[in-house]
């Protein structure tokens, strides 16, 4: 694909060289300037690796024609002497919306909109590949000026609206020409994002996983459409197909989404260029593995204003750390050889760009890497290598002229040339008048000292020891100096004026005295200006706080390792027929339970004295919503196509807190916004690992269904989405299952068919390849779903919540479904009026596999207590009660051969309790997943102290920053919503 681009680029270049003018001209005769401009004596940064000292280069008709130590100067040349100056290729920003008019926001409505608003396009308004940057573009000279000042010559611009956003264009920031001259490539890239279009209110998708599913489906549909299978015209899909060989740029704004974008790309063989978040350093291994090029915003968090201690308490450790760490992001990317370019899209290019760039360099980014990120990397990324971003024969004449090393704070950017057109930012032919002078005016002698940049000199005047008020201006080589009278009782001024066309040791001009008389003055140079103290230049040392896994409070600096452990002399709750074994040893090796018995030989394993303690299998939570960036896709009444695995959030502190409550495996379920929800993610709580590495690999696929008030949207949301009654809920299922059967037979027939991710999932369900966990409350609906499933010849695997399960336990047993319920929740809505805490006990008594689940990040950390409630309500035996949070949920998830009990050969997911695990007084001391202690109460104690210390240090650093006049931001507290099934649903 890239090769094709290169060829196209070269071809265009050739065309340009031999271009014939064809535009009529009515304001004069047709002229054409084919003269050369030759620059000599410059330090030329050909590219980040190549520098020509005292070099020359020539440009003609917007292109560079020659570069070298010494080049042939054609007769028709004007020559510019750049003695002492440096030339860099001008910068490129691949992620802007430069010159793009703001998309019009759709008007609000009282009800959500479920169908697409555009006709002749895709079924979802947020898929807009047909959007064309050119059609929405007009050159913004104000913004261009800012970009010129920051050193930019070319930007890629696009309409930043929608999920698939259409094509962007590569445009040169050339002043005073037409758009036709500026556009380098009118179809330079296709853009994507996780954000919906503001131009449409269409509900779907309401979630990140919905967005990912939609992108996947759009790709599949485009392929199918390309085969000529559709009856209708779909301009969006046509455009998507046309755009498929462009560079694909995916905009994200957080680290997890960066990795998610890459995941979708991988599935379709597309390598996205990813617009990042500046937090890539927090998970560098995965970032590197993505093989993507990153467009990183040159933006760093500001320090927080922590003067008020009460406000400071509301600041998360994560936010504080990011302030300290983020400036080192680019250095770390560079060191790890992750290709990246920079973007100004979230900053003020004029004011913040250079300062932030210098900050990154201060934090260790090399100048070469910085220059590459602004020139060659973006050029390569957009398929314009050798055409932009270099000073090389055949490239566009896009370059900047500076007073010295660009990456030096004091350096002045004189000129920014784009396509051979010059923008003067500072006069570079300014005479250097700095120095110490003996100034003689009207017979009086002053000591004049001029310092600073030649273009912005500052004066200090003394007469003997008395300081004289003065004001110096120096423009177009004319010096104007205003001197106040040494007699402070008078407000009188002497005005001096002199033309200084070139460096001289003697400036002479005219002086106008307070009384109006004119006289001559001279200033004889005594010495050069004193060099500024080099103190400032000294490299500042920055201590960057080490990244932890995850990079939040209680993250690990060093990920804990798998250990071989012998638990000695514990009370072992096997959750098997063996029951509870007193004074028993359990040996763990290589992440597995290898032996259970008395007086076992440790054989090199670490021995943990568990005398008086209880060892159990790790708790399995069948119904959890922790560790997720999103819960509900509410845009459709079925969202079978969405995957919770797409939205796992490994940084959620609830993972750690759950471990502290003895939980080791969870089913991360979709919410209950719709009858057919999304696909589950079954996770191992491996705190510190990436989202991907937390997936419980061997667990079979699951999906969430839901019934009752939530899916009817009884307590919130719209009143226009089908279904609004339980009668309708049945119809949704019957309809989808019937359609899935038809879909399957079409698929099997060998005829062309449109691959439909939703139908694929439902076919899996019908074929028993994907298990259903259904959110359910009242007996009628429970019964209904079993009957519908039976009619389609499959089984419901689990009813979750199932608060009236006790009323139909016999029917459930007959159907062969398990139950995962709350211990004692009720009374929060109408359908839980008959929920009773005896539910679990009755269902267990009837012979169902019963689990107690949490559905809540608070309850999940004390599921042992919830299980114990069935001892109280219904008189269940303790062993049976304990099974409800271990082996029973493992059975419901079909992972009981791996976890859920203490049995030889099983994964070593274990909890060591200080007390009887069903007692309110019990707390986990150690929690192990596959032989790794992810929670240890002693280590937790140490971490608390470290966190306190770290917060203190960071607060100290921020106070210091504020004291040094660095801009701070106010503390705001970001709230993470606590989610469970009954408090869900994003308002549309």
């Amino acid at each position, binding site marked *: 694909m890239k090769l094709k681009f290169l060829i196209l680029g070269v071809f265009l270049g050739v065309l340009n060289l031999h271009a014939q003018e064809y535009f009529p001209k009515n304001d004069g005769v047709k002229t054409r300037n084919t003269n050369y401009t030759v620059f000599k004596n410059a330090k030329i940064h050909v590219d980040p690796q190549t520098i020509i000292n005292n070099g020359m280069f020539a440009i003609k008709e917007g292109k560079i024609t020659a570069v070298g130590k010494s080049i042939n100067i054609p007769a028709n040349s004007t020559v510019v002497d750049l003695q002492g100056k440096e030339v860099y290729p001008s910068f490129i920003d691949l992620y802007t919306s430069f010159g793009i008019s703001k998309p019009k926001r759709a008007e609000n409505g009282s009800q959500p909109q479920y169908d697409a608003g555009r006709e002749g396009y895709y079924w979802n308004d947020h898929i807009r590949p047909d959007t064309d940057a050119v059609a929405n573009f007009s050159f913004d000279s104000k913004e261009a000026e800012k970009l010129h000042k920051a050193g930019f010559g070319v930007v890629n611009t696009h309409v930043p609206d929608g999920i698939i956003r259409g094509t962007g264009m590569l445009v040169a920031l050339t002043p005073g020409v037409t758009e036709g001259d500026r556009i380098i490539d009118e179809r330079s890239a296709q853009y994507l994002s996780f954000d919906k279009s503001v131009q449409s209110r269409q509900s779907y998708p309401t979630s990140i996983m919905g967005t990912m599913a939609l992108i996947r489906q759009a790709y599949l549909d485009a392929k199918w459409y390309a085969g000529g299978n559709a009856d209708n015209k779909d301009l969006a899909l046509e455009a998507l197909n046309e755009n498929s060989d462009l560079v694909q740029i995916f905009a994200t704004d957080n680290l997890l989404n960066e990795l998610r974008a890459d995941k979708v790309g991988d599935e379709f063989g597309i390598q996205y260029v990813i617009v990042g978040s500046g937090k890539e350093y927090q998970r560098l291994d995965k970032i590197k593995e993505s093989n993507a090029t990153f467009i990183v915003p040159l933006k760093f968090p500001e320090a927080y204003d922590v003067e008020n201690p009460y406000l400071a308490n509301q600041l998360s450790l994560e936010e504080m750390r990011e302030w300290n760490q983020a400036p080192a992001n680019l250095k770390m990317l560079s060191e790890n050889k992750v290709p990246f370019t920079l973007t100004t899209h979230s900053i003020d290019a004029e004011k913040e760009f250079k300062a932030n760039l210098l900050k990154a360099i201060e934090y260790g980014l090399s100048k070469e890497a910085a220059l590459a990120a602004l020139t060659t990397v973006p050029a390569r990324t957009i398929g314009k290598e050798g055409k932009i971003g270099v000073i090389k024969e055949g490239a566009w004449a896009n370059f900047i002229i500076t007073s010295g090393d660009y990456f030096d704070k004091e350096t002045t950017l004189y000129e920014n040339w784009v396509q051979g057109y010059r923008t003067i930012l500072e006069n570079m032919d300014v005479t250097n008048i700095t120095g110490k002078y003996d100034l003689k005016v009207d017979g009086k002698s002053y000591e004049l000292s001029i310092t600073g940049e030649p273009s912005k000199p500052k004066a200090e005047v003394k007469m003997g020891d008395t300081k004289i008020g003065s004001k110096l201006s120096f423009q177009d080589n004319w010096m104007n100096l205003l001197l106040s009278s040494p007699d402070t009782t008078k407000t009188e001024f002497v005005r001096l004026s002199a033309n200084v066309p070139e460096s001289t040791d003697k400036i002479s001009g005219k002086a106008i005295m307070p009384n109006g008389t004119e006289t001559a003055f001279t200033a004889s140079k005594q010495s050069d200006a004193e060099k500024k103290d080099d103190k400032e230049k000294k490299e500042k040392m920055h201590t960057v706080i080490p990244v932890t896994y995850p990079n939040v409070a209680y993250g690990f600096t060093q990920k804990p390792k798998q250990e071989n452990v012998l638990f000695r002399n514990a009370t072992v709750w096997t959750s098997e027929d063996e029951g509870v074994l007193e004074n028993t040893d359990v040996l763990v090796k290589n992440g597995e339970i290898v032996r259970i018995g008395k007086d076992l030989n440790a054989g090199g394993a670490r021995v943990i004295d568990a005398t008086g303690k209880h060892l159990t299998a790790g708790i399995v939570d069948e119904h959890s919503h922790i560790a997720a960036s999103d819960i509900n896709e509410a845009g459709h009444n079925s969202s079978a196509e969405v995957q919770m695995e797409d939205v796992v959030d490994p940084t959620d502190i609830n993972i750690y807190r759950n471990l502290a409550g003895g939980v080791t495996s969870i089913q991360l379920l979709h919410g209950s916004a719709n009858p057919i929800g999304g696909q589950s993610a079954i996770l191992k709580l491996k705190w510190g690992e990436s989202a991907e590495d937390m997936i419980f690999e061997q667990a079979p696929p699951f999906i969430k269904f839901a019934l009752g008030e939530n899916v009817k949207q009884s307590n919130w949301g719209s009143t226009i989405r089908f279904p609004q009654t339980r009668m309708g809920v049945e119809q949704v299922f019957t309809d989808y299952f019937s359609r899935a059967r038809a879909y399957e037979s079409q698929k099997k027939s060998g005829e062309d068919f449109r691959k439909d991710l939703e139908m694929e999932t439902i076919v899996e369900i019908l074929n028993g390849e994907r298990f259903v966990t259904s959110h359910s409350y009242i007996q009628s609906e429970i019964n209904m779903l079993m009957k519908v499933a039976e009619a389609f010849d499959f089984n419901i695997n689990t009813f979750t919540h199932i608060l009236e399960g006790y009323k139909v336990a016999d029917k459930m047993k007959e159907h062969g479904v398990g139950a995962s319920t709350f211990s004692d*929740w009720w*009374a929060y*809505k109408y359908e839980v*009026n008959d929920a009773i805490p005896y539910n679990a006990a009755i269902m267990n008594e*009837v012979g169902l596999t019963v689990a107690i689940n949490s559905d809540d990040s608070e309850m999940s950390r004390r599921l042992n207590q919830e299980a*114990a409630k069935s*001892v109280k309500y219904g008189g269940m035996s303790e062993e049976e009660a304990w099974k409800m949070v271990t082996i029973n949920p493992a059975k419901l998830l079909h992972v009981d051969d791996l976890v859920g009990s203490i049995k030889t050969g099983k994964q070593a997911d274990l909890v060591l309790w200080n007390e009887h695990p069903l007692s*309110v007084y019990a707390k986990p001391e150690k929690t192990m997943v596959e032989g790794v202690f992810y929670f240890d109460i002693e280590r937790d104690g140490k971490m608390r102290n470290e966190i306190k210390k770290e*917060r203190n240090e960071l607060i100290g650093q921020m106070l210091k920053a504020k004291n040094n006049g660095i801009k701070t931001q106010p503390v705001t507290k970001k*709230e993470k919503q606590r989610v469970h099934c009954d408090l869900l649903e994003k308002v549309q």
Partner: protein
Amino acid sequence: MKSVYNYILIAFLIISGNSSAQQTPAPEQSEAVTIVGATAHLGNGEVIENSLIIFENGKLTQVMDATSTKMQYRGEIIQAEGKHVYPGFIAPNSTLGLVEIAAVRPTIDQDEIGEILPNVRSLIAYNAESKIVESMRPNGVLLGQIVPRGGLVSGTSSVVQFDAWNWEDAVVKEDDALHINWPDAFSRGRWWRGEDPNLKPNKEYTEEIQKLEDFFNEAKAYLAGAQDYTHLPYQAMETVFTGEKRVFVHVDGEKEILDALQFKKDQKLDGFVIVGGYNALGVAEQLKENNVPVLVNRPHSTPEMAYEDYDYPYKLAKLLQDRGVLVGIESSGQMERMNTRNLPFYAGTVAAFGMDKENALQLITLNTAKILGIDDTYGSLEKGKSATLFISEGDALDMRTNRLTHAFIDGRKISLESHQTELWKRYSEKYENQETEKQKEEDSK
């Protein structure tokens, strides 16, 4: 697997037969009751291993060590060896009886329109026949403070007992306290209006406090004057200034608590209570000095900030008590009404994370009684106090062993049945019968 317990209970239920949805309130105590041999947890920190407890006409007449007495048993004798006796648990800051089903608007009576409503009284809306209220009793929660919600001044609460025909029957302490929702130093933008939903310093904080001060000052002025017109809110403040009505301030932040203490001082308020107190630890000294107790929010909650100790809510009550603050536990929050029956386990969790068990018990008995100002009658098992108590098979702070056999409110032997036990019974019976039928069928084959 069937436990013997289960069989016994089902048998008991079958014998006792069906009853109506709402349990009939118990009649006045007609004869003395003697409880023998139980471990008595007095609620004041003391334990009597082998106790003798006698009560008559609703009052405790004897609470003593059975091993060292030859006291005559009186009336009904309950042999309770191996069992445990506790004073009835008290649930402060509750909306029990004000809301039945949280998602069904017609059943909600907790939040009236208006900012400052001292005249709004929870008592008259309290539904003594609430199915949720009756579900408290099987867990030992026998009393509660019923509190209106919302606004700056939510209204006036009352303390009730949980076995009554109507609210007049239920009342233990009428109009016991005024409830103030202290303004937050932080506020959150209304995201649905496109405002930043993050918590930010509240610009109106000072203004809100001023509003409160103005109201108190105006009310004082009104009450000192001729009162020639009726002003319901000002009149409702009279007992606040006389000290009869306590002032409960619902507040979590450290700064806000300090400001509230200043308000107490400025307004010369007695009987001042902090409710919630998430960050009260930082101002424990000042609370102690000012003699201000804290009703900490239920320990079964998650820490607000990720950097906080995972067990912070579990141990907050202990940390405050260690610093000399009088502490009780309240259970407001998500699903607060139905969750109030878990009050004993909240205390149990505090004990799990470091507090002595008898001290933890005080968090839901005598401490709370003191905070509500009903400790002359309730909150502990002491001679002369109300016979509001229950007997549990085991440790009542542990769900594993909290199994009530008897409960008494003011000496009245109350039902431990509920809508829920009835459903339990009905469906257990259904399946029992199915089993029997099946057995019969098999036998006849």
